[in-house]
């Protein structure tokens, strides 16, 4: 009997890493030209980003259903594990609600649901940290949950976007609406923290946006975990990680590709960075 972490697939945790951390991923859906694909299962990331830029209609995303959560959680409970679900921020997605509904079908206390308050690589670092806590020999459910809630409370991700168009079309633009600036080809920086998507800054090109991401993260000081993420361009993400890697232990520095569900809203060329 152990404590097991379940997350939705929007976290962007690579499958091998998920397996080595004993993390179970519940796939979100992405709908392209009326066909539903399970993220990371039915469609590769390369194929997805190609379709994102060429599909006549912008893909849409859909959270995992309560049944999807139940289906993934039930075998873990049957095996005698305790389960904690850590989801993408509830203001951005119905995933948290699906997880809560699924949890209600099981005995009280069997499944705990925690909102990461952030997304993509910010969420991913919290999953990695929680999986490590859960695997510790003296771990307790209450202790792991308390640590997760503490990290979620200060969780964040900064994201430099090539354009706000995808966020706008996907209906997730929120307060970043006023950050449009298509005539000047503005590269906006947004954050997801405290559950909310917020405008941070506008820059005039991606080079300056990446410079600002570095400054913003460095201003938060040393960390236990550092991660960068990209939708289509790996090289700038790798450069950014190289610039920042003195902030965290080498074995807790990650570079991931953003999955299709979040990528639908971030769009091609987006770069994200987070620490905890």
């Amino acid at each position, binding site marked *: 009997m152990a404590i097991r972490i379940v997350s939705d697939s929007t976290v962007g945790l690579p499958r091998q890493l998920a397996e080595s951390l004993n993390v179970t991923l519940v796939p979100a859906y992405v709908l392209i030209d009326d066909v539903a694909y399970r993220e990371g299962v039915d469609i590769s990331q390369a194929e997805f980003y190609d379709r994102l830029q060429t599909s006549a209609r912008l893909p849409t995303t859909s959270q995992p259903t309560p049944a999807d959560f139940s289906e993934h959680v039930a075998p873990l409970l049957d095996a005698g594990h305790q389960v904690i679900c850590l989801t993408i921020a509830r203001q951005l997605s119905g995933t948290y609600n699906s997880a809560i509904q699924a949890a209600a079908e099981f005995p009280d206390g069997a499944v705990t649901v925690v909102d990461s308050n952030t997304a993509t690589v910010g969420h991913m670092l919290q999953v990695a940290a929680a999986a490590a806590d859960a695997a510790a020999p003296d771990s307790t459910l209450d202790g792991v949950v308390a640590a997760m809630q503490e990290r979620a409370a200060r969780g964040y991700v900064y994201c430099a976007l090539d354009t706000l168009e995808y966020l706008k079309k996907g209906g997730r633009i929120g*307060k970043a609406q*006023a950050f449009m*600036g298509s*005539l*000047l080809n503005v590269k906006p920086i947004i954050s997801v923290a405290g559950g909310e998507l917020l*405008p941070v*800054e*506008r820059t*005039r*090109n991606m080079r300056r946006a990446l410079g600002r991401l570095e400054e913003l993260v460095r201003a938060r000081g040393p960390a236990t975990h550092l991660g960068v993420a990209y939708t289509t361009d790996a090289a700038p993400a790798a450069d950014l990680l190289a610039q920042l890697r003195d902030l965290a232990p080498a074995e807790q520095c990650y570079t991931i590709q953003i999955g299709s569900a979040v990528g639908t809203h971030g769009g091609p060329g987006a770069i994200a960075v987070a620490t905890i």
Partner: protein
Amino acid sequence: MSLSSTGLQAADWRAAMRGAVAYLELYRDAADALNVFPVPDGDTGTNMLLTLRAGIAQMEQDSTADTDADAAGAVAESVATGAFWGARGNSGVILSQLLRGFADGIAGSGAIAAPGAVAALRAATESAYHAVSQPREGTMLSVIKGASDAAARANDAGQHDVIALWQHAYDGAIAALADTPEQLPVLKNAGVVDSGGLGVVAIIGGALQHLQGRDGPPVNLGLRSVSGVIDPAQTASVAIAADFLDAHEGEEFGYCTQFVIHGQDLSVETLRAGLGEIAQSTVIVGGGAAVRIHVHTEDPGSALTYGAGFGELDEVKIDNMNLQNRDWTAGHRERAQPAVISPGVSVIAVASGPGLAALFQDTGCAAIVPGGQTLNPSASEIIAAARSAGTADVIILPNNGNVVLTAAQAAGADTGDVRLHVVSTRSMPEGTAAMLGFNPAASLDDNLASMESARAAVATIEVARAVRDSVVDGQHVAEGQFMSILDGQLAELAADADAALLAGLSQSGVNGDSIITLYWGDGADAARCARIQAELETRYAGAQVDVIEGGQPHYPYLASVE
């Protein structure tokens, strides 16, 4: 082409009339909104437009059918005839009579030279005054008279170029329009200029634009009411004093009654005397076989019965002015409602040039106040725009050294529940940089700090042509030279704008990491900008060069380096 010797040909006058109707259309809503006299019923602009359109339709029809239409005088005759039959409302009927007088003043002329234009404007004025039983100053009558007098003075002073003369007529009309609130107390009480007068200015100004070869889509002419520059796209820029609305609410205005009488030897004087007994605002035009009647009366039936005694009635139109007034009042009340003020910060910008205005809107400005180097907005215009933004704190971007003080004055005024703040941007490029530093999710203080530092982080280059010999920053500048002004200081002089721009940029600290934003306006074009862009990308390898069509007046180029 020397128009001073040959005068305006038929084709020139047709173009002028098309310009007139295009600009009247642009200012139609503003004229409707300004309409307080004789009855505040909000239809002056519409009536004048429909009347002039009828004249233009006749003109276009005759231009293909009638060989006499090759004469400018015949073109004016067609416009007058069409306008007579299509005249609508008090102001429309007066306009039709004005056009009738103009046509009579140049009847038989093949071309309109300077003396002919003076005579035609004078005849137009006399004819318009004659249309009204009790002419009042401070109306469209005074405005056409102002135009006519100014043209006559210029001609007496030796101005024989008909287009230059028309410019004088336009200036005279604008001056007369500005005087209307002093002449007619009801306008002063309402805080507006005369609506029909605005229509006349738009007509003369539209004709001038086209005579001067600017025949593109109509542009904001910068015409003013008492409260400031009228934005023709926004009726809200035309405000009526609340006291006036209160005082006239529920007043009975009766019916606007219009008809044509077809008969024989019809006498305008007889009809005017007879109808004057039973109705008000009597405007009667025509004579002989047809007259057009416009009256305001509580009893339209009696006016029609009276008219039917002289011949057959045609084109009968009766409007309930009480209903029209209620709609007009409600419209102004709704627009005058103070915006709901919620906590938060927004930005308004002073901008000139359609491209720059669009840019500020695109980057999230809540409102744009038209203005710049030569068209300085007033503090009250800035305050009105700030109130429309809807947030408790509003940051003003003056975007011109001449506007910074006015903005500070606005910020210092008592504006109740809206607090104004200024980030002292002295040029449009500084303004756009500051705007990108704005974050609606951040606090006021954070925004003021980040916008100020964004403003300070850019170098600005303004390229302008010297309009006279002068000394600028200790240097002699000859008329026609192009000045490159770097952060407000004269940096370079050059024979052409492109050279001035490149020279100014070379002093701005630009390098391969720079972002250069180039805004082109009057006196520059996209092709030249493309060449400059290529040149800059070669000179400063790695630099980003963005080119924006700013459309700003006076400055062929504005640029920022950051």
